[in-house]
């Protein structure tokens, strides 16, 4: 196929209207040959004097701040430069944000665990402030005054009381030679002009006109397209395949085996490489691979959950053990003894997994890494025998925008696969996973079982609860946990509830099903079981669930404040009509506290989610509009897991494949109204990418119980059947 009237080479996508610079593609001349164009990455086009790797000021007044953290929807493209700009004393409209490549000079560029703002807030303020200090010093020297007679505002240094100013661009040459202070003074929060205010995201203009560059959009000259047929069961070996038949499809260029590593397990699939993606897919259909996978056909969701429920009857490893729960349960006047269960889930990023790699004959490499861990240079260098100190010079890695990540893109298996193909062919190759590959091949969110018990005395007061969680762990999939609780598995279980006897345990289950970080990870599953059960306990104790939590969480003033605010904003105490129900939940995870109140209504023969009111305490926030957006998104992501699909296994394979049998929440099913309120305080910044998720499913089932009296303990469930 050939388009006749198209300039496929992409030039610098400079967007005047947004002040954001994205991708470059002067592909083929980029490396090595003397006298040819060497500029390849966006930062190669930045002109001016770098005061550090992040801030460059040009004599024409352009102030460039590099966006170095992968943007997957969380607004970080804007947020980190905003933190720098705040302390640097420049306005956002004076700044051009340029997308960086992957490089060690930017520090660690992997994202996950709602970590970016939390870990970069302080260092990036310091960087901005230190940069401002050298500009102040340069001005002071020029005026022959002391630095404290100078102050900075909107890219100008002012000399106190004189009305004189010097612009940053006129100071940058001398500032570059001034030693950077190690402990610059930071602004007090009350002086913030950018942090804490809603700023428009500079990547968004590109995301409403199709110009944003995602990994799947990479189009270097001479590109070939690849698809891979992998074993339909979780593991298996290739016995044979029909290479000739696939090669016979018009446009198919090559057929080869490719290995994928998932938590130490290596699996081989067959790649079909063609001139275009359609031809590759047609060739793939002809492969007729015979697999040796009989021994892996035993894996099924049924046996998985049966085994885990058995395990839940045994003692687990103790996470919290206060009082003596067994005694209080044995002597209880009244009891609750129930089991909660949640299935595996797929991340289902809107942009399916993909990668583009070009390994050249001269051992240089260009990579488009739609990844949450894009610094792949050293790994590729080892493969190619490139010395480590040459890795960054010879291997260039673009950071495209990511069409969602949710943890999935912290595993680089698509890059691993694509690298093998390109390294064999020495041609640029784009590997695209079909949606079916993406849904069924994993890794998945864990499936969990939670055995929950509570004891009550004869006055109806709750005297103790026990939460026994059984699941695989992520970090111990390819090793033993040595009798220790893996660090990730207890996230989202609130240990602060004041029960005289309080027991929290973990039982580790081992399985061949690969699991991986999935938005809020164990917070999503633990938060559901724990907060739904707390609600059962409150209702059985004849208490209002919100007052009950306030009472039992007195030791945690931040949580109480969040509940008080939720009480007010949601009008919690207002009596509802017969056709209405309400429920709430509160979970602390990834450094932030989020409470949701869900309101349900019977309408037109069904049940609708009429409103979700949220209160978020994430400490200091950078962009309140984006903190709200992340919470809205978490609500939808969590509701999808509660109400729509589940990944189930039968005969060793996932039974779901695409959005027709693995459903996503759609606009007509989404809450009619979402209101997100942010607490205003001076606490350290907490995460925002995940903490909004864990409390939504429990708030929902608690509202269902309020509406119908029926407890939902197994997800997903059908809201129209309650």
């Amino acid at each position, binding site marked *: *196929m*050939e*388009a*006749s*009237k*198209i300039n*496929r080479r992409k030039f610098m996508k400079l967007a005047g*209207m947004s002040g954001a610079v994205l991708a470059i593609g002067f592909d083929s001349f980029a490396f090595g040959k003397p006298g040819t164009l060497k500029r390849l990455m966006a930062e190669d086009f930045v002109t001016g004097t770098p005061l550090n790797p992040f801030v460059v000021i040009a004599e024409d007044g352009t102030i460039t701040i590099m966006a170095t953290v992968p943007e997957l*929807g*969380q607004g970080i493209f804007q947020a980190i430069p905003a933190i720098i700009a705040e302390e640097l004393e420049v306005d956002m409209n004076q700044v051009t944000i340029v997308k960086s490549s992957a490089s060690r000079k930017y520090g660690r560029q992997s994202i996950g665990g709602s970590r970016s703002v939390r870990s970069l807030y302080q260092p990036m303020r310091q960087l901005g402030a230190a940069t401002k200090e050298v500009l102040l010093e340069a001005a002071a020297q020029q005026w022959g005054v002391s630095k404290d007679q100078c102050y900075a505002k909107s890219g100008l240094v002012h000399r106190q009381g004189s009305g004189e100013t010097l612009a940053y661009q006129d100071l940058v040459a001398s500032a570059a030679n001034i030693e950077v202070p190690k402990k610059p003074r930071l602004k007090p929060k009350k002086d913030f002009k950018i942090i804490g205010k809603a700023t*428009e995201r500079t*990547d*968004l*203009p*590109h*995301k*409403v*006109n*199709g*110009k*944003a560059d995602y990994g*799947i*959009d990479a*189009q270097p000259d001479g590109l070939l397209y690849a698809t891979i047929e992998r074993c339909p069961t979780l593991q298996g070996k290739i016995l044979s395949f029909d290479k000739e038949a696939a090669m016979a499809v018009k446009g198919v260029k090559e057929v080869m085996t490719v290995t994928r590593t998932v938590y130490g397990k290596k699996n081989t699939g067959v790649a079909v490489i063609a001139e*275009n*993606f*359609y*031809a590759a897919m047609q060739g793939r259909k002809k492969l007729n691979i015979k697999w040796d996978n009989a021994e892996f056909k035993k894996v099924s969701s049924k046996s998985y959950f049966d085994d885990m429920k058995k395990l839940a009857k045994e003692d687990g490893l103790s996470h919290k053990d206060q009082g003596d729960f067994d005694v209080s349960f044995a002597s209880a006047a009244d009891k609750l003894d129930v089991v909660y269960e949640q299935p595996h889930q797929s991340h289902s*990023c*809107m*942009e*399916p997994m993909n990668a583009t790699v070009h390994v050249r004959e001269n051992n240089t490499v260009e990579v488009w890494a739609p990844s949450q861990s894009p610094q792949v240079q050293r790994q590729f260098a080892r493969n190619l025998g490139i010395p480590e100190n040459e890795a960054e010079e010879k291997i260039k890695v673009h950071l495209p*925008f*990511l*069409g*969602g*990540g*949710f943890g999935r893109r912290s595993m680089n298996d698509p890059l691993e696969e694509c690298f093998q193909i390109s390294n064999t062919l020495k041609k640029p190759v784009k590997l*695209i996973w*079909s*949606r079916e590959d993406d849904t069924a091949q994993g890794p998945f969110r864990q499936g969990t079982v939670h055995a929950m018990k509570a004891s009550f005395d004869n006055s109806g007061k709750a005297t103790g609860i026990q939460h026994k969680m059984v699941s695989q762990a992520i970090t111990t999939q390819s090793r033993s946990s040595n009798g220790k609780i893996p660090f990730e598995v207890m996230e989202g279980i609130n240990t602060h509830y004041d029960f005289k006897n309080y027991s929290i345990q973990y039982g580790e289950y081992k399985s061949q099903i690969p699991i991986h970080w999935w938005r809020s990870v164990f917070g999503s599953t633990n938060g559901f079981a724990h907060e739904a059960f707390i609600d059962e306990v409150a209702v059985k104790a004849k208490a209002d669930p919100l007052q009950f939590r306030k009472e039992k969480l007195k030791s945690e003033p931040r949580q109480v404040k969040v509940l008080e605010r939720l009480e007010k904003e949601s009008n919690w105490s207002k009596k509802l009509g017969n056709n209405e129900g309400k429920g709430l939940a509160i979970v602390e995870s990834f450094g932030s506290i989020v409470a949701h109140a869900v309101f349900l209504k019977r309408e037109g023969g069904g049940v609708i989610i009429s409103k979700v009111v949220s209160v978020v305490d994430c400490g200091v926030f950078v962009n309140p*509009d*984006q903190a709200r*957006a992340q919470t*809205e*998104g*978490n*609500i*939808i*992501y969590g509701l999808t897991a509660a109400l729509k699909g589940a990944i189930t296994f039968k005969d060793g394979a996932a039974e779901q494949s*695409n*959005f*027709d049998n693995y459903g*996503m929440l*759609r*606009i*007509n099913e*989404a*809450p*009619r109204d979402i209101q997100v309120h942010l607490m205003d305080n001076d606490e350290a910044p907490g995460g925002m990418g995940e903490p909004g998720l864990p409390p939504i499913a429990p708030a929902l089932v608690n509202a269902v119980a309020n509406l119908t009296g029926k407890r939902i303990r197994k997800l997903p469930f059908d809201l129209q059947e309650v």
Partner: protein
Amino acid sequence: MANYKLNINNEPYEVEAEPQTPLLWVIRDEVGLTGTKFGCGIAQCGACTVHLNGTAVRSCSIPVSAASGQQLTTIEGLSDDNSHPVQQAWLDVQAPQCGYCQSGQIMSAAALLEKNPKPTDADIDQAMAGNICRCGTYHRIRKAIHTASNNISNGSK
């Protein structure tokens, strides 16, 4: 292989392709307009939505042979300066998160407003239910469609 004449965003293109090739891949990889996205390939997600003679269709499920000679509009053809009222409204409410679904969302919304400049919430549900947003921006999308509708009826651009 056959030769097809396509009209995309009022520009003529000629492509060589197998007749069954999904229009989506021709638009993206042969014509080079990558704003239209691949999400599912089976008309379930709407990421690939384009206008065919003014109607929103899923380009992953239309063979190139069926699109030949028709008027096609992609996200790139909506405006070249983000001036279309739907794009403006999308920016007003800061609708996108990762942004990957948004070309499709915007094309569905633009087609809706073209036919029905004052959609109710139920109209929006109906027209937009074919577009999945995994980031969960539905709340803002609904707001943006109402904003665009108001701006259109107030005569602003």
